[in-house]
């Protein structure tokens, strides 16, 4: 029987977006011992990101992909990280994440979330873990994980967006991100590498 550590070390996870969700998910999976991460984001770090994203003051202005590679290396150098500084779209997602066992949707806009979930479900054969509803503060227990269908796991409260709640906090985004990392570990250990 394969141990959990062995299953994770031969796993590859794709992380689409390295903001409040993606930066937290990447670090949790690296600490858990996932063998390889494919991370993608086109953006640079801004001061306003530091209220919830896992970067440092001296990284402001630099590429999120480059800085996350550096931060992950300092946390767990055994994890192999492939970084893509690209704007993900329906055409390049299947190529960028071709090798991954599953994909974490870590975007911010509703239309980008829609786009990647639709793309993964219609053009690829892997599961995707996605998030809707994590803005504001408090109401921790309204953030839940649901299996919508064999390849779709949905996390969040389903309603609280940045458009209506006006604020994102490290705590509530972090809760959603840890649901996401935890759902990915469960998929890898119990299904994909079972």
């Amino acid at each position, binding site marked *: 029987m394969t141990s959990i550590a062995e299953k994770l070390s031969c796993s590859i996870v794709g992380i689409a*977006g390295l*903001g*409040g*969700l*993606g930066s937290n998910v990447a670090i949790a999976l690296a600490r858990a011992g996932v063998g390889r991460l494919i991370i993608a984001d086109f953006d640079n770090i801004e001061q306003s990101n530091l209220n919830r994203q896992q970067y440092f003051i001296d990284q402001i202005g630099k590429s999120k992909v480059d800085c996350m590679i550096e931060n992950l290396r300092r946390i767990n150098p055994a994890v192999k990280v492939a970084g893509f500084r690209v704007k993900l779209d329906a055409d390049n997602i299947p190529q960028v994440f071709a090798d991954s066992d599953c994909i974490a949707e*870590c*975007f*911010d*806009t*509703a*239309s980008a*979330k*829609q786009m990647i*979930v*639709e793309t993964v*479900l*219609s053009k690829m054969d892997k599961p995707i873990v*996605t*998030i*809707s*509803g*994590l*803005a504001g503060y408090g109401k921790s227990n309204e953030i839940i994980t649901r299996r*919508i*269908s064999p390849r*779709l796991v*949905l996390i*969040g409260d*389903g*309603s*609280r*967006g*940045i*458009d*209506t*709640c006006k604020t*994102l906090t490290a705590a509530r*985004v972090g809760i959603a991100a840890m649901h996401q990392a935890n759902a990915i570990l469960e998929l890898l250990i119990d299904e994909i590498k079972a």
Partner: protein
Amino acid sequence: MMRVLKINGQEKTFPDGKIPATIADLLQQLRVDAATVVAELDGQIIERANFSNTSLRAGQSIELVRFVPGG
């Protein structure tokens, strides 16, 4: 005659006895912006470009995942 659609696991009857003709019509009735929705009809992903030409029938089961911004 059963005029029921199962939406996100809940059976929904339509007051005028008519199921919306397409996924696009259903979303319009629910006042949901199609650009924020992923739909699975009887377990099959339906791309947004096909919402207006995918017809609905009584007894079908549809999952609508609606995204709100934030991440």
